[in-house]
């Protein structure tokens, strides 16, 4: 089933000044749950994504693909949320795969050496098809 959430599932979107809240959309692909994210992963959008990941994990979805193709911006706060998501899934013998097609987002991961923690896949298909 497809689920679209604005913010952390709140009924009314939270606005930022000149910014965009995050919007997430999740669907199943076999054993994987693909969470597509759009917006800005910073100190405002990051907590919303953390809530979304925790909701998925609580629902028993421990194998997540985070698709960041709709993300316009990421900083250390957003990176921290993604590292936390990996920790949460692995604690439950799950895993987290990342789709990061945008070079400017990839650069932020690379500058922090997080491309050594995650494989940055160009597409959801590549992430789903990657070996364990």
């Amino acid at each position, binding site marked *: 089933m497809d689920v679209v959430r604005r913010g952390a599932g709140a009924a009314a979107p939270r*606005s*930022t*000044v*000149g*910014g*965009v809240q995050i919007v997430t959309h999740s669907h199943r692909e076999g054993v994987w749950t693909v969470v597509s994210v759009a917006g*800005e992963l*910073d*100190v*405002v959008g990051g907590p919303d994504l953390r809530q979304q990941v925790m909701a998925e994990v609580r629902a028993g979805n421990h194998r997540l693909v985070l698709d960041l193709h709709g993300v316009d*911006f*990421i*900083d*250390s*706060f957003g*990176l*921290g*949320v993604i*590292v*936390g998501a*990996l*920790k949460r899934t*692995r604690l439950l013998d799950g895993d987290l795969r990342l789709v990061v097609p945008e070079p*400017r987002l990839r*650069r*932020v991961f690379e*500058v*922090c*050496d*997080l491309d*050594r*923690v995650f494989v940055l896949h160009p597409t959801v298909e590549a992430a789903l098809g990657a070996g364990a």
Partner: protein
Amino acid sequence: MAADGPDGDEMAVADFRPGEIVLEIPARTEFVSLVRVVVAAAAEIEPDMDHARIEDLRVAVSEATTNAIVAHDLHGVTDRVRIQCNLADDEVAVVVHDQGMGFEPDEVPLLPEPEAPERLLHESGLGVHLMRMLTDESEFSSSETGTDVRLVVYSSKRRRRNSDG
């Protein structure tokens, strides 16, 4: 800078330099995206500034502004956070000033190696690293009364000149 008022009193006049933009924002995280938008738009005015460098500056300024807001929040400071953006011929310099209690950037603990299992225990601690890595100059001046973070990116012309020696 000062000037005489109508009654001969000295009145303060903002000493703006050409190419200087000053933002004063409430110390609320909702304003970080506005700062990014303004700084990036200002940097776009510089004709010789690479788009990729502007993206780098956007991330670095986001880090500094978020830290400033958090510092105000932690110490109950209600004043605004000040962001100065100076456009010059061959660089864009941004100073983020807060009135928190200050911090020592060299004392930010190093994170474990990326492959180490304990790396996943650290969800924060990358902000100073990003500011240093994504700018051509970064300076942190901190005292008990606040912190100035100065972030500079060079134009492509200046980067070429520097690399040519």
